[in-house]
């Protein structure tokens, strides 16, 4: 993620051209962390920090999953499409992490959050950390997420929080393309050959129990919803069901009858898959602390 250091590459705030050196323990901690030589960080999760971090983690983890397809997709065009969608998501994650860093004001940057937190500190949805599986599973996972992200980011453009609204204004257009692309694929796979239909149906069944978490809001988030900083995810569940139901029907697939849903990602209780993912994502910084390229 590390790009060129700029004065305020983040969301709307300029950092001074030269930062005054800090003395004492705090200065040493910041220097160590800035060079990524510290092992793991603990984030001061105020409600707004936690809220932004959760969305950033969704985007980073799903973006990373898609990057695993790079060079392996069934065809070149799809390889580029999955990489492009992954790039959009990682871009959204960068904007959100940069905002988290500004909110924390602890001298951290986007890289600290991506590389220096362990799995229980990650706040992403369980859905996005699920392994790629076959192409059908990757597409269905993306479709379930995008069918939520699209109305979610559109609604967030009206957030009272100006930075989140600005990030949403970019993300909502990208989500529309992601939703369109994955919808078309779900229909093509479901209403395709016997083989593709069976695989798409299996993917829908395997991932269904991770979709309930999309609409959860804990006490912290309910406060932010009251302040109109956040959107009530439950209010999007109807739009999601209509989009997903419509596409699944057209794809000649069946939505599972079960309403039992998995939960835990938002509070750091993850499936074992996340640890494996992070071991790849964080490998370089964990193995060669402070490595630069």
């Amino acid at each position, binding site marked *: 993620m590390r790009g060129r250091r700029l*004065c305020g*590459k983040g969301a709307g705030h300029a950092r001074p051209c030269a930062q005054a050196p800090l003395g004492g323990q705090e200065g040493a901690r910041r220097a160590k962390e800035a060079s990524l030589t510290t092992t793991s960080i603990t984030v001061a999760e105020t409600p707004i920090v936690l809220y932004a971090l959760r969305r950033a983690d969704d985007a980073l983890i799903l973006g990373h999953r898609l990057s695993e397809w790079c060079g392996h997709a069934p065809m070149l065009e799809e390889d580029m499409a999955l990489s492009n*969608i992954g790039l*959009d998501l990682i*871009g959204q994650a960068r904007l959100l992490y940069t905002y988290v860093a500004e909110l924390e004001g602890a001298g951290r940057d986007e890289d600290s959050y991506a590389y220096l937190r362990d799995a229980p500190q990650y706040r992403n949805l369980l859905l996005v950390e699920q392994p790629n599986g076959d192409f059908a599973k990757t597409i269905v996972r993306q479709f379930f997420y995008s069918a939520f992200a699209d109305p979610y980011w559109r609604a967030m453009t009206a957030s009272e929080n100006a930075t989140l609204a600005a990030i949403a204004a970019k993300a909502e257009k*990208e989500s*529309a*393309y992601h939703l369109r692309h994955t919808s078309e694929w779900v229909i093509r796979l479901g209403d395709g050959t016997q083989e593709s239909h069976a695989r798409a149906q299996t993917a829908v069944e395997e991932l269904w129990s991770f979709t309930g978490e999309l609409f959860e809001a804990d006490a912290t988030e309910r406060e932010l919803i009251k302040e109109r900083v956040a959107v009530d995810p439950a209010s999007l569940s109807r739009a999601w069901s209509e989009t997903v139901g419509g596409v699944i029907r057209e794809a000649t697939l069946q939505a599972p009858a079960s309403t039992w849903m998995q939960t835990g990602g938002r509070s750091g209780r993850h499936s074992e898959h996340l640890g494996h993912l992070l071991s790849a994502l964080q490998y370089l910084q964990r193995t060669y602390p402070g490595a630069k390229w």
Partner: protein
Amino acid sequence: MVTSPAPSAGRLGPEELRQLAWRVAAQVVDPEIPVLTIADLGVLRGVDVKDGCVEVTITPTYSGCPAMNMIALEIEVALRSAGITAACVRTVLSPAWTTDWLTEDGQRKLREYGIAPPKPGGSGRRLLFGHETIACPRCGSDDTHLLSEFGSTACKALWRCGACQEPFDYFKCH
């Protein structure tokens, strides 16, 4: 790239310095579409001078566009070449960039470069599940079809013309 004599910028007043910095920054081109300047694209939002330090404000196109880091670097290099060393590049997200900001000149340059320009006023949302008609930038034919929704960069889709048989990039609405 502008290469004014380096020492001159230091003697300029704030307004002259601002104008010079704007002219220099406005000539920086998109590394992925080198016929377009960041001014054509609408990425360059402003240039200010504060306490002798030039602050160039840009806005990202797509969240994940890797060209943004490159553009910021190019701006710093261009300013430095023009003798402006006290400078920084700031990124703002609001108002969100849209392809509608692409200048008419920019649209023409894109077409000449072989990229079909974005349809003015067309957001991704309205086109959801809709059918687009994109004219071939080479022969102008409307007999075109989409090969891939996502093209060589985040901002482009890959199309092919049925009349001249040439594939071409389409700059997606955003």
